[in-house]
């Protein structure tokens, strides 16, 4: 018999189980165990895990050697039964034991990768005048929330946000599952008043001045003066001692007693003839109520004119109102 030089530890260490995909066949052999073992090993087959199971001998060989083993056992009238060890039923517990941790890690990695693609919310910062709804609508053109596997084009979102009215600058970043939109708003336009051009303050209506407050310029009228519409009430300059007057845009508050009149025609004679006096009183109260815009209700007079089919009421009243 040829002696093969084989490292001792190779065989001692080979009792470890083969990998799950290594072909392995299990055989049950009846009859004399020693005879069957000698047959197989003399035929060049390496047997493993030989044990006695009841009245049968159990042994393992590689699936590659199975045809040869079957041939040897068959030629020598051995009764045997082959149990395939590669079935999922046998391998599954081993698979679970060995690969559950790896599978767990892989599943965790996969979950982390999928979670990284989630866009759960859009956060808008820096807006005070532009509403969040407007900006959110611009963002939603490119990404809906929540959504998985979302890779929105941040540059396009920036451009969409910039198109919103009142947005001067926009920066869009992604932090985890959030899209952060930072905006800088346009400043509201401020009204620039020309205070240098010499413009006088004129009366809008005719009346008798009851109060005048000069904010800028020089007053040319005083309380008790009568003015007509278009008269200058505050001149457009300011005197500073002996120096030349400085031109300014005149500004101030001028109130005056103004007389106004109104005619009201009631068309239904029958309905209003008898009640004319009462209607006039009602109208007076109505005027009083509707004159809330005026500061003081000074007085009124009524002139009732009866026509064929209607009554015309002329009302005269005085109010103190602002004419500047």
């Amino acid at each position: 018999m040829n002696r093969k030089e084989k490292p001792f530890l190779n065989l001692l260490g080979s009792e470890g189980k083969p990998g799950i995909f290594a072909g392995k066949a299990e055989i049950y052999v009846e009859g004399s165990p020693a005879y069957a073992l000698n047959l197989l090993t003399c035929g060049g087959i390496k047997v493993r895990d030989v044990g006695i199971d009841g009245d049968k001998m159990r042994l393992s060989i590689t699936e590659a050697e199975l045809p040869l083993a079957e041939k040897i056992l068959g030629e020598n009238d051995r009764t045997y039964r082959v149990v395939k060890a590669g079935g999922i039923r046998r391998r599954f517990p081993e698979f679970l034991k060995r690969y559950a941790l790896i599978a767990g890690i892989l599943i965790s990695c996969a979950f982390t990768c999928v979670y990284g693609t989630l866009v759960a919310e859009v956060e808008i910062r820096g807006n005070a005048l532009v509403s969040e709804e407007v900006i959110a609508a611009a963002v939603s053109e490119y990404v809906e929330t929540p959504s998985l596997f979302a890779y929105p084009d941040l540059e396009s979102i920036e451009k969409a946000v910039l198109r919103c009215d009142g947005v001067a600058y926009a920066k869009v970043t992604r932090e985890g599952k959030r899209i952060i939109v930072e905006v800088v708003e346009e400043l509201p336009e401020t009204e620039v008043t020309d205070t240098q051009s010499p413009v006088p303050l004129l009366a809008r209506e005719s009346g008798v001045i009851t109060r005048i407050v000069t904010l800028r310029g020089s007053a040319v009228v005083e309380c008790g003066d009568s003015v007509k519409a278009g008269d200058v009430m505050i001149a457009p300059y300011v005197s500073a001692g002996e120096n030349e007057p400085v031109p300014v845009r005149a500004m101030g508050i001028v109130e005056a007693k103004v007389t106004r009149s109104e005619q009201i025609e009631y068309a239904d004679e029958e309905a209003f003839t008898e009640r004319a006096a009462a209607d006039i009183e009602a109208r007076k109260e109505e005027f009083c109520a509707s004159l809330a815009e005026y500061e003081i209700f000074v007085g009124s007079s009524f002139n009732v004119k009866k026509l064929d089919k209607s009554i015309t009421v002329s009302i005269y009243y005085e109010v103190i109102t602002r004419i500047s």
Partner: protein
Amino acid sequence: MGFSVAVKEIMLDKITFSAGEKVFIEGHRGISSYSPEETVVRITGGTVTIRGEALEICEMNADELLVTGRISGVERRKKGE
């Protein structure tokens, strides 16, 4: 371990055992008998009897043999003894 015979080298064969759990035989000539309690292995010029409990032939080919189990004794007999 109370081995009845401590066999180290028998002619061309080599027998190694460790910790009462394994016996490794190189250059065997086949198995005479096998059971979980006693395994008799033919070697050149005699036999080696391994006794114990739950004996299993872990690996075996035409030249080498590894027996594992709770080994209580290994006995070598020369032909004619």
